[in-house]
């Protein structure tokens, strides 16, 4: 009986296998055509240059070299600094929040409500969400008004908007869900018995956190960082709306190069952002090794 059903099973499996291979191949072809090729085209464009609004198709490193001068290096470093700061602060807020939400004894129904609230920002256009903050943070805005009314300040406060602080703040609000959700998912699938076993074997709360919870939630942490760092490096709406032209980031350079029809510069800047992201992610993966082998953690997800 068992032998018959087993051979029937393996037969149906072998029938499935070529089909799944076709699907895998289809995925590779589609993803290659839709994502990888455009990126390669973009990358190759960065080796051309523009002369009097016309792109000349002779390979040159001039565009890449031009990134180093004309203040673009400062802009790049500023972008990197702000993106990393935002990602780090975001992680420091989001990890404890996700841990509390997943394992802090929050009722399942409350968890569902909190998760649903976290997805609300995805329903709204980013620029309309950000522009609201102008009326709250500005010199004539809500907070300034309340501070003056309550007598806490003598005059209107003007340092809440149009500076780096405001840009950081806007980005923190924007990317909170993208950091929290993957970490929450990763932590919530950790078996409670593992956490209990750790305590039972004599581990302090700190040991359990660093030796069990963090290593097992690494895939989620990595996903959260990539989903936050990538958009933060390319952020455009927060710096333009809350920076008020005082906080220029790479995206603003891309925008201005784009409006000047300097496509090779656009290409080089975009490639540069991606390159930075790639380097940061690799650095992060190496850092993550200190907490345990990523491969082992991913293999536990399979089982």
């Amino acid at each position, binding site marked *: 009986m068992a032998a018959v059903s087993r051979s029937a099973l393996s037969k149906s499996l072998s029938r499935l296998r070529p089909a799944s291979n076709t699907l895998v191949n289809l995925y590779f072809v589609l993803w290659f055509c839709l994502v990888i090729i455009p990126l390669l085209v973009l990358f190759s464009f960065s080796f051309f240059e523009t002369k009097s609004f016309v792109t000349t198709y002779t390979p040159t490193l001039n565009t890449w070299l031009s990134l180093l001068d004309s203040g673009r290096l400062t802009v790049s470093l500023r972008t990197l600094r702000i993106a990393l700061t935002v990602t780090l602060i975001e992680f420091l807020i989001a990890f404890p929040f996700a841990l509390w939400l997943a394992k802090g004894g929050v009722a399942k129904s409350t968890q569902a409500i909190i998760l649903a609230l976290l997805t609300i920002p995805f329903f709204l256009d980013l620029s309309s969400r950000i522009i609201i903050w102008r009326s709250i943070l500005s010199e004539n805005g809500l907070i300034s008004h309340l501070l003056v009314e309550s007598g806490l300040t003598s005059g209107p406060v003007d340092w809440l908007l149009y500076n780096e602080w405001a840009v950081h703040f806007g980005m923190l609000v924007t990317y909170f869900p993208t950091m929290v959700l993957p970490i929450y998912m990763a932590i919530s699938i950790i*078996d409670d*018995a*593992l956490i*209990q*076993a*750790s*305590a*039972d*074997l*004599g*581990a*302090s709360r700190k*040991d359990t956190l660093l*030796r*069990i919870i963090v*290593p*097992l939630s690494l895939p989620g942490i990595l996903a959260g960082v990539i989903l936050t760092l990538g958009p933060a490096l390319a952020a455009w709406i927060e710096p333009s709306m809350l920076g008020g032209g005082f906080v220029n980031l790479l995206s603003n350079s891309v925008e201005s190069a784009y409006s000047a029809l300097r496509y090779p510069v656009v290409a080089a800047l975009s490639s540069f952002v991606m390159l930075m992201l790639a380097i940061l992610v690799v650095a992060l993966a190496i850092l993550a090794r200190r907490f*345990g*082998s990523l491969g*082992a*953690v991913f*293999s*536990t997800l399979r*089982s």
Partner: protein
Amino acid sequence: MLEIEGATHRYGELTALDNVSLSARQGEFLTILGESGSGKTTLLRVISGLEQPTEVGKLMIGGENVVGVPPSRRNCTTVFQSYALFPHMSVAENIAYGLVVRGISRDDARKQASKALETVRLPGFEDRRVSQLSGGQKQRVAIARAIVTRPAVLLLDEPLGALDERLRLNMQNELTDLQRQLKTTFVYITHSQEEALAMSDRIVLMRSGRIEQLGTPSELFDLPTSTFAAEFMGFENLLPGVARSVDGNLVSVALSGGSPVVGIAANPAGISQGDLVTIAIRAERLSHSDVSRKQCRHLNTLAGTKIDQRYRGKYSDLDIETAAGKLKVRTWDNASLPEEISSVSWRAEDCIVLPTAANRKT
């Protein structure tokens, strides 16, 4: 080694543990037996500290008062039902975990882990990944991880539940061997009476958060104190009756239909003349042959006829209809099964007289 007095635990309205007191000696194999929902797992979690009891009079592990002490500071470890091995660590890292978090150097911890692996008969498994292990191997690694820190009490939560039968029987012997070798107090949870009988020094039978009966395996097997204990320990035949007289631990009972029988009671003081009682007899202690056993002081005999017969391989079960009700008789001699049966008989020692639950004052 382990002492609990008046432990009560409630989950909201539900009382999972109702004023339980018990103790275990150094090196004792104590089994907590019960159905699911009887409170046995809650009791284990209260001992390990994973659950803080609603009320507890006294809770001592290894001579230390552990009321309010977190699980990490208690001198006991748990072998979890699901094993709870850390999936991102190798076998050796799993076993060494309890040592590493106590600040023992990695080299020393690894050496002790290797020794523990030898103790559970898995030498050379140090660098295997947890996902590469079979169920039985995971079980051994979980035990090695729990014993490596030399706890005063080892708690085992249905550790053999997920294993197939042959492996389970082997592991029963290995666990008792290991327990004798380590001289550690084992508190073992199971719902299987066979496991409990085969492994324990003493058995705690639990029922809806209370201790129903506590005793050695032979006490629980041969002399249950309640109808619940009798049924749980596998007494196939339970018949209602009325107590006629009590003489020492011998009780005369009139079964329905008027037949007089004599049995013994674990607690004769709890039975007085005229009480409703239940008698419990194991199917294999009933005899269908008419051979009179003169060596018995009290032999009970009931007239009856065979109404059914089932072949079970090693034995056969016969259903006998008597004036007092239907009785199941188990016979190991398949070759000489009689065609007709006129009576069944059993010794007074095999006939347990139990107070009927309705009599009991709550």
